[in-house]
């Protein structure tokens, strides 16, 4: 089973805090991998927050092909972080030959284009790079977006952290938001793309459990958007539903909850907005999840969200101090990160709640 976690802080934090959050939960996550998305970056990328940041892992040939592609399409490289990896045979991980974390300047004509045109460009570029690398199995592109960094690898999380020197105090990767998970999707084949958090156009999502309506979700999502692809994991569909509701339909966040875990028909009848809820339920029946899931989402503006399946078959807990909010599958993770907090204020969300955490750490518990 997966364990998921997130840290949202008013001061930038290092990945080792995320590891501290996840390692106590090790019994539950089998240590088969480590994956995190960092947003609102400081440190090495502090000065290029507006510029799209490419995160990928690939072969030497892969880097070359990417460079050629980016050149050809008018992207100019800006800042870069090349991890100074620890070459130690004893480390239990399956490292890729190269890791690329760089920001780019938009192609010249895009400097004057709309936000939407830029968003489309970044998505299409990521998809093109992904296809390019897939041609000859040259690696993986995880995200290409301003102020967002993704790191994923297969192996023991502690070893991966050592390899990338994430334990070091002078680690130059720092961010105010980290969403993290410590397991490859071992239900099926081990594929790096199957490891959450997943990312699409500013939306990040991490979910544990098993989405029993995966087939329905997937079949419905494929024609909706070119970015709804891959489907290496059954929780990817949750990211696409989030993106669909918020980005494509521009609907308020609470409708995401209504759509993935609709209220029973009987309960809807007693709601003031019953006609609307029925309409959403019938129209988007194929986005219902109906399985045991807990999800952590991160929106383009940095807001974090959390909610569970309708029967709450997956646990989650949220702890808080004045300077940070920590979300975790198990409370032992939170205890490791913020032991000093008042545990009485911990939140155990119910199956009908949607939790939002804003950048100033205001927590809202919205009930469906």
């Amino acid at each position, binding site marked *: 089973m997966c364990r998921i976690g997130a840290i949202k802080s008013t001061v930038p934090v290092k990945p080792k805090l995320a590891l501290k959050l996840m390692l106590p939960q090790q019994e539950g996550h089998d240590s088969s991998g480590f994956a995190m998305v960092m947003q609102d970056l400081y440190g090495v990328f502090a000065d290029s927050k507006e510029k799209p940041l490419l995160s990928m892992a690939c072969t030497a040939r892969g880097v070359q092909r990417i460079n050629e592609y980016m050149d050809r399409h008018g992207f100019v490289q800006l800042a870069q972080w090349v991890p100074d990896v620890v070459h130690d045979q004893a480390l239990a991980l399956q490292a890729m030959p190269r890791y690329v974390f760089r920001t780019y300047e938009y192609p010249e004509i895009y400097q004057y284009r709309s936000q939407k045109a830029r968003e489309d460009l970044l998505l299409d570029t990521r998809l093109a790079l992904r296809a390019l690398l897939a041609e000859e199995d040259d690696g993986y592109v995880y995200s290409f977006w301003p102020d967002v960094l993704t790191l994923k690898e297969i192996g023991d999380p502690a070893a991966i952290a050592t390899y990338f020197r994430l334990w070091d105090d002078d680690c130059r990767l720092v961010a105010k938001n980290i969403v993290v998970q410590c397991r490859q999707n071992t239900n099926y084949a081990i594929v790096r793309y199957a490891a959450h958090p997943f990312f699409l156009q500013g939306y990040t999502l991490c979910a544990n459990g098993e989405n029993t309506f995966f087939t329905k979700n997937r079949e419905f999502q494929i024609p909706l958007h070119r970015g709804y692809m891959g489907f290496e994991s059954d929780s990817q569909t949750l990211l696409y539903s989030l993106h669909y509701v918020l980005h494509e339909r521009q609907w308020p966040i609470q409708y995401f909850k209504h759509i993935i875990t609709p209220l029973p028909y009987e309960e809807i009848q007693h709601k003031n907005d019953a*006609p609307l809820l029925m309409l959403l339920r019938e*129209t988007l029946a194929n986005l219902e999840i*109906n399985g045991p899931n807990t999800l952590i989402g991160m929106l383009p503006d940095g807001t974090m969200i959390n909610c569970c399946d309708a029967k709450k078959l997956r646990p989650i807990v949220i702890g808080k101090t004045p300077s940070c909010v920590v979300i975790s599958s198990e409370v032992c993770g939170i205890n490791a990160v913020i032991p000093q907090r008042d545990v009485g204020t911990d939140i155990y969300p119910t199956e009908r709640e949607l939790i939002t955490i804003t950048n100033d750490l205001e927590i809202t518990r919205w009930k469906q």
Partner: protein
Amino acid sequence: MEAINTQDIATNDLAWKIEYIPERCTLCGSCVAACTFAAIAFVRVDLPHKKTKLLIRQEPSLAHCCVGCGVCEKLCPSQAIRPIANPHSRQHLLTSCSGPARRGGRSNLQRQRTVDALLVGRISQMTDPSLDAERHTFDIKAPLGRILSPDKLPLQRIGDTLTITGKTPPVRWIYPLLFSDMSIGALSTHAWEAIALAVAYLNEVCHIPVRMSSGEGGMPMKLITSDKLKYMILQIASGHFGWDRIIRTIPHMPCDPAGILIKIGQGAKPGDGGLLPESKVEHHIQHIRGVPKTTLHSPPNHQGLYSIEEAVQKMHLSLHAAFGFRVPVAIKCAASSTSVAVYNNLLRDPYNICGGFFLDGVQGGTGAANTVSLDHTGHPIASTLRDCYRAAVAQGLQGQIPLWVGGGIGMTGQAAADAFKLICLGANGVFIGKLLIQLLGCVGNEYGRCNQCSTGQCPTGICTQDYRLMMRLDIDKGAEAIVNYVLTFDSELRKLMAPVGNSSLPVGRADALISTDAAIAKQLGIQYAC
């Protein structure tokens, strides 16, 4: 010694033979009186020493052949008589010599059902635990009505809420088991009333929103003008019987009906029209349908409809308009190799007004059809359904026109299993007809038993307008049997949803199914297992 005439018919030529034990018979006469087909009679036979004896004899006649209904056996106080299927029967051949044979019931040849080669094989056990069928709440409802794609919803965002700013097509959320169209006329008023009573009870006492289709031929005035109309789906078939009265009554209806069903075809006799023999057109049927006493033919198709596009425009629109665009209008066709094409046409209809595609498979029943049609025309339902669902998926239109399927549902007794598997293949719900009358006491089956629904002599009082026969059917008991069956269906459906971890209907969740037949698995796009 008598001369032999090999053309003579003997009881051994007939499909059913009577086994009679004279030593047990008390000559009470119940069997003879009860046999609606006059297949048995008293005869006096000569015994040695100028003695005679009264015995019961089976008529060696096609006109009065025994149909195996077993009513005699049921009534005999001494277990002295019963029908036995005759493997040496020549009856099929012999009846064909006097014109095309007709009968009711289901096909007697196509007994293999695809659903029986499917298993619910994806059981939630670890990462996605099974639900508890007794403890969890299940949300078992299915749509009837046109569902729009999300980008077509008339919604406006005002602050943090969405508001509906326009009209959307009417959609009813009903139980995924629908009582299918059997008309008053085909059924006795008693049988029809028993089914309608069960529907009312299921809705009002059990809170299970089952709906019933009227069948072609209208409805009793008392029902059309009562609030029970909300449980009824009014059917319009090619004969348009009963619609004159329905249309005139619209202003007096206290509520809207649940839906309108345009019947184009029937799975048991695709391409063939309806038929109500004169013998069944009794006074009350004439009244309800607005016809004289005569054999009533519904044409094979709706006169004046030349294409689906036209069907959509003319019938859907006018029926929608008649009920103020408040009632979903669906269409029922016989399953066919062309079903996908029809469904595609409906899906692409620019008016968004087709509220359901009802597909009736070859194993569906009928009140009357030519035997040749019953046995040799039609299309299995599983692959038709799957193909339609996948055609919709390919266009991103799944769920927009709900798929309801029928034809042989519950043939093995477990309609819940059939329904569950078909739902996983893409159906929103299923409809049953023959199963209902079997619950009322119909003894007909797929092995040639009875099936005399077209004769007006139904021995169980279900398919007849003969008042004396109707009296054999206890309405309350019949309704009770249906109610109890639906309650069992409901808990069995939960028993199937729980292990796959679903509390909502797993429409299109074909990953929950496996097949032990490789060809079926391939055709339906599900996992093969052995």
